[in-house]
Every structure is written in C-alpha cells, then in structure tokens.
C-alpha cells in the first residue's frame, strides 16, 4: 500500500498519568517522523506536576507528524502525534475524542458486553485495546493486557537540561499533602494490627533462593503483595473505592505499592490483577518498578487509575509497624513493618521467630472491624503457609 488510507490514520493523545494530572509537557521525543513504532514502545518522556514519566504507545504505526514541540505544556487529551498503521484493521477505533465519557466514544468499537463493562469500570478506553475476538472484537481477557496511562511519577535523575528538581520535589510534596489531607479529613479510619510468624515463609524462600540465580530470588515483599492480593480477592468489601456515598467493588484486584524515593516523596506503582500472578512474576515486577521509581524511569505500564487497594511496606530499614492513611478513594491500606526476630510461643515453648506486624487501615463507612479482622486472618494464613500460594 503506497497510499495512506484515512481509516488507518490515528493520533496519539497526551495521556492522563494520574488522577490529579490535567496537563503535562513532553520533555523529549524518543521517536521522529517516519519512525515505525511498536506496541509498548516508550516514545517520549513527559513532565507532569509530580514528576517525569516515560510514556508508551499501545498501537503500532508509522509516525507522520509530531504535533507538539518539547516543553510546551498541553492539557490531557491533546493530540501529540499523527500516525498511520501499515496494516488495515478497521475494527479498532483510534484516538477517541477527548471530553466524552469512555463508554460513549467506545460505542463504535467491537467488544463483548463483559469487556465493555470491565473497561468502563476500570476507566480503560476500549479503543486502546487490541481485541483478540472475532473481527478484532475486544474480549474481557484482552483488558488484562492493557495498562491505562495514568497516575504516579518520579524525581528524575539529572541527565542534562532537566527541569529544576527542587520544584519537582515541592510539587510532589504538595500532591502528597493534598491527598493525605483529604484522606485524613474525609475518611473515618479504623485500624487493626496482627503479628504474623514468618518462620515458615523465611525458610521456604531461603531454600528456594539457594537453588536459584540472583535474578530469580524472591524477597518477602513479593509474598506480602501476593498474600494481600489473595486476601483482597477473598474479602471484596475491602477491595474497591468509596464514591458518592457508596462502596464500589473493584473490577479485579489492582494493588498499588508505595515506593519511597531516596530524595523524599513517594510513588505508587500499580500491579493490575495482582492476585493472578505467581510469586516469581510479582517479584520481578516489584524489583523492576522499585528501581525504576527510584531512578526516575517509571513507565506508564505501572501507572494509571483503577487501584483498588494499597500496600505500604517499610522494608528492612523501616520501623516495626506502620499505621498509614488510606489513599482516597480506596477503602483499605495494608501496612508491613520490618521483619524482626522476636520471642514467640510455638508448641508451648518460647522460640526466636521472624515476626512481621501487619496493619490494616480501613474506611469505617465501608466496613467494620470484623471484616478487617477476617481480612488479616486470611492474609496471615497465606504468609504462614507459603507452599499454599
């Protein structure tokens, strides 16, 4: 095909990289006119209020025109690139116009009713999804491969011509301040804690890690995420959001993990459908996004809306326990302190055991302490029986 058919042309829009992002600017284009871009390719670095994010494109195509020059601040939804696809696939509608509800602009995309419903709930545009069904129709399983560009961020490593990092840190601080103020004033928290014996888990991981190369070893952090995701799936009352005076259950268990930055501030990369991953897969993701967050190279894969529960894990340099604040509009925050050897009663004998204190902060409008207690009991059972998971 020598000529570009108009139906294969599409635009790439400034993505929303956070619930609180209204505008952003491209710091640097990593592609140019005439380049062939692939699905998942990082095409630019974008500066937002909070930080810089590498943005990815979710459709393959050839770049025809770069519409926005670096450093110009544009609002979310502004066309950034014009592209065309080399293969014709008329069933997927690209470049939804901005300002319309997702469901409306997706009306022309072929999709199963379940996929449509899930997309709506997750705030995913069907036009961003490559369908695997008949005639390219989007099926619900296709949604699991999608990452909506949204939330979170980074303080960027200085690599020439960077924006002022101190003002970036200030803006991140301001965002955290605003969100935590809202959490504290709007959400009536109840707080629970439970000490969990990690003897079995520690031994299980040590034996498993001894036989594996460094890159495939698993830290307790991955087990914490997995146990939390399993508990959230079993206790859906704690997995979701509080919107307009009522609880909205999450579509899937989408776990945000708080990553503290060395220069101060936090980022919360997201693992979608975390309950569907193995320990290995979770570990891989956590190691990767932690390093990415701390070096300012977080990709949009790990950002976005749709988080249903958040974990804060203080790690081995942290305090013994943490009572955090729920990230609105979620209804639960699970906190892990550092793992400490403590005297523990096992079979009527006192023994030193590695103990972690897990806390749950939950929205009392949505649930009561009995639900929270059951959630922590499920979580404890998973961690105490590592072979089960």
């Amino acid at each position, binding site marked *: 095909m020598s000529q570009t058919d108009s139906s294969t042309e599409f635009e790439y829009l400034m993505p929303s990289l956070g619930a609180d992002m209204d505008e952003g600017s491209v710091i640097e284009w990593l592609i140019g006119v005439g380049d062939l871009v692939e699905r998942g390719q990082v095409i630019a670095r974008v500066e937002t209020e909070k930080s810089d994010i590498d943005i990815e494109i979710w459709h393959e195509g050839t770049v025809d025109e770069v519409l926005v020059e670096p450093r110009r601040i544009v609002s979310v939804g502004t066309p950034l690139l014009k592209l065309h696809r080399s293969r014709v696939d008329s069933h997927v509608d690209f470049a939804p116009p901005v300002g319309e509800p997702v469901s409306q602009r997706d009306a022309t995309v072929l999709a199963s009713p379940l996929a449509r419903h899930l997309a709506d709930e997750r705030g995913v545009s069907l036009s961003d999804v490559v369908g695997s069904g008949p005639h390219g129709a989007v099926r619900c399983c296709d949604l699991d491969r999608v990452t909506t560009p949204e939330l979170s961020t980074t303080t960027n*490593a200085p690599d020439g011509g960077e924006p002022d990092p101190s003002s970036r840190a200030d803006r991140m601080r301001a965002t955290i301040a605003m969100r935590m103020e809202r959490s504290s004033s709007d959400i009536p928290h109840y707080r629970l804690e439970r000490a969990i014996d990690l003897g079995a888990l520690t031994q299980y991981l*040590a034996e498993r*890690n*001894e036989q594996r*190369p*460094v*890159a495939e*070893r698993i*830290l307790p*952090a991955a087990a914490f995420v997995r146990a939390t995701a399993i508990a959230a799936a079993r206790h859906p009352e704690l997995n979701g959001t509080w919107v307009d005076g009522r609880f909205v259950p999450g579509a899937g268990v989408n776990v945000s993990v708080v990553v503290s930055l*060395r*220069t101060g501030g936090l980022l919360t990369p997201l693992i979608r459908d975390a309950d569907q991953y193995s320990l290995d897969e979770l570990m891989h993701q*956590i*190691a990767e996004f*932690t*390093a990415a967050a*701390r*070096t*300012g190279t977080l990709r949009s894969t790990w950002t976005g809306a749709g988080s249903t529960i958040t974990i804060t894990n203080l*790690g*081995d*340099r942290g305090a013994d326990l943490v009572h955090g604040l729920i990230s609105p509009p979620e209804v639960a925050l699970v906190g892990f302190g550092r793992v400490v050897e403590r005297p523990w009663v096992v079979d009527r004998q006192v023994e030193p055991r590695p103990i972690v204190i897990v806390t749950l902060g939950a929205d009392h409008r949505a649930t009561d302490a009995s639900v929270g207690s059951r959630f922590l009991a499920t979580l404890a059972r998973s961690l105490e029986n590592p072979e089960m998971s």
Partner: protein
Amino acid sequence: MNTTRSVTVDDLTAAIAAVAPDVAGEVAGLDRDIDLFEEFGLDSMDRLNIMTALSEATGREISERQYPELTSINRLMAYLDGPVT
C-alpha cells in the same frame, strides 16, 4: 558458556547507579571497609537489584546466605575473587 571475571569498582558504581543515582558518584571514593548498604541507606530491594547486576556483570553466582557478609566493597571484591582493577 559465559566467562567469569572479577568485579570492579566500576561494576559496583554502575550497579548502585541503577538503584540510587544520587550516591553513585561517591562509590569510588568510599572507604572500602565500611558497610555501603548502611552508608547509602539501601534496602533489601536495592540489594537484590545490585547483586543481580554484579552477578550479571561478572558471570558469577552470589549465594543469598552470604549477603550478611557482603556489605563492603572489599568484602564484595574478595567474594567475587577480584583484584582491584
């Protein structure tokens, strides 16, 4: 298949730069006997990424059981069997 080699201060600097770019520049000048994880406030997740990078750079395995010992530049170099280069 892979050949192994000794670890260098450059390897270590690169490994630390990938998790803590703010202190990577200090690695070369650091006292080689002090606990660098302590010094730089690196946690177990950082350590996993650093050990992975060092293992990949040198082609050698690093036993998890040795982690508590492998805290200083000198100890890492001795374990990874490397003269200073």
